């Protein structure tokens, strides 16, 4: 009874996890399915989907399926990289602030608030104006602006923990408290972790798509955002060029957005 209920309630979460697994598996096959890389020309341009070219060809004659697969890898990489930066900063800063307390706590939380307040796309646009549009800039911008919420939660956990006896004892004995702290607060953080990771990764992917559309994306990268932007002029004449990467982007974003639902599976 309980088990079935859990599956039903957590069904959205299940969808999310399943999607992610499928996406990662598919993205991993890119080098196998398309050994020539994302830029290689395969056939005549603007061919509709056929048996040889499942998703047709784009305006330069590349297989849309191949470019999308590689794009999936790139976008996934961007999202995960940004997410990793966010998670790392959030947990570390929050734990330090909560445990150490005092001035550093105040300062770190103010920094967290600033990081959280900064409008991400605008910062990315500023960075593009100063440093020329590059993917590393975007990843850093996104990673460095999304950790505020997580830090707050990590801080609370750290504070609650630091008052407990075994930590005080360890500290008195001169043992490494940081590792202890992390080991104990991490299990409690899995919910906010997922709740944060999901939107952060989804946000990274979506922001990159927006940048590519307005012309500030990294022209050197083969991300889904760039693919959709270059397919945009052909939206009516070659729908498969847009539809395929959009479908991939939707699946990717959806998967990570629904990740936040996982904690709701009780």
């Amino acid at each position, binding site marked *: 009874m309980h088990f079935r209920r859990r599956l039903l309630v957590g069904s959205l979460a299940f969808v999310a996890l399943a999607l992610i697994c499928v996406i990662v598996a598919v993205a991993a096959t890119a080098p196998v399915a398309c050994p020539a890389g994302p830029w290689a020309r395969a056939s005549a341009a603007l061919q509709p989907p056929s048996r040889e070219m499942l998703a047709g060809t784009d305006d330069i004659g590349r297989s849309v399926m191949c470019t999308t697969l590689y794009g999936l890898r790139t976008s996934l990489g961007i999202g995960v990289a940004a997410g990793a930066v966010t998670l790392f900063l959030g947990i570390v800063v929050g734990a330090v602030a909560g445990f150490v307390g005092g001035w550093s706590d105040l300062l770190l939380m103010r920094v967290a608030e600033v990081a959280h307040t900064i*409008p*991400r796309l*605008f910062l990315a646009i500023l960075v593009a104006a100063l440093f020329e549009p590059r993917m590393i800039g975007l990843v850093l911008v996104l990673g460095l602006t999304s950790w505020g919420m997580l830090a707050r939660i990590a801080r609370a956990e750290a504070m609650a923990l630091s008052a407990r006896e075994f930590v005080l004892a360890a500290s008195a004995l001169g043992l490494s408290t940081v590792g202890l702290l992390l080991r104990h607060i991490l299990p409690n953080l899995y919910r906010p972790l997922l709740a944060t990771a999901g939107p952060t990764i989804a946000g990274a992917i979506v922001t990159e798509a927006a940048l590519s559309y307005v012309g500030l994306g990294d022209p050197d990268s083969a991300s889904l955002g760039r693919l959709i932007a270059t397919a945009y002029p052909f939206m009516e004449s070659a729908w498969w060029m847009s539809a395929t990467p959009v479908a991939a982007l939707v699946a990717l974003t959806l998967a990570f957005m629904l990740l936040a639902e996982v904690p709701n599976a009780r």
Partner: protein
Amino acid sequence: MARPIRGAGSSQAVTRGTAPRATLIALGRRAALGLFTIWLVATVTFVLVMAAPGDPAALLIGEDGDAQVQAHAAQSFGTDRSAIVQYAGWIARLARLDLGTSISYRAPVSAVILERLPATIALMLPALLLSSATAAILGLATVPRGESLNGRAAILMAAIVSAVPIYVLGHLFILMFSLKLGWFPMQGLSDPRSSLSGLLAVVETMRYLALPTATLAMSQFVVLWLFLRARAIEEISSSYLRTARAKGLTLAQTYRRHLWPNIRLGFLHFVAARMGSLLAGAVVVESVFGIAGMGRLVVSASLARDVPLVTGIFLMAATMVVVANIAADALTIFFDPRLDEGERGAL
């Protein structure tokens, strides 16, 4: 979704008796914190500009092309001095609301931004209201159905729609509602062939705003909806709700009288926190629908490497986010001073 955490270092809860004065103090503190935040953002911006290739003074003030003006600017800006002095000078200018001169427009950045701000606000405000209202209604309506197939399918479909890139969504809206059905115009904010005024002009602007606002609202509303739904699910098992149901109230009444008042403030804060995302959406929507607002301005400024203008708009956007958060805090305090927990801030 995690609740806002009550910080351990919070000040005393305010008693109702001294509400008005305490409210002012609380607001004052928020405003001060907000200013501090903006100052930190400005500092971050300065560090970025210093780190970028190129002469910071030229980047921040803008080369006027006029050697005399440039020399004067360099002197007052102090490019021959250390970074600290330059920084102090820049902050002082910001405090005077002097954002420098735009390279591509050859006009003061603040004037250029103010020219374009109304269009963006006209776009964002209705979108904000529309998306939050829809999310609130749907969020409460889908909670009891959260476990059924219909509820989950609806959420899935909505999430799919919101994951589609905003400009693709906008373009599809144009194709469907403007081209095929002809209900709304697809670009600009007014009809170039006629000049209406007064009430007619307002109605016309609303027609032109319909599709861009709908696109922007669509891109926001799912996240708001999911948040509200998650909060509602969390609250549902609480005892006070069970008591209300036990007392014989209908589901709707329970939600309206007991559930909603408890989650609406958290929702308000969440909406305010989404301000940055709303601004980002405005950037894309303005480009698709040909609306001359701040979003499109920052893009063309960035493409032109017009650093003073981009910096000015960035600071403006950050300020808008801070103001939105302060407004949310102000409303919170107004509704229930007990909830002023001091350390809440914008998170």
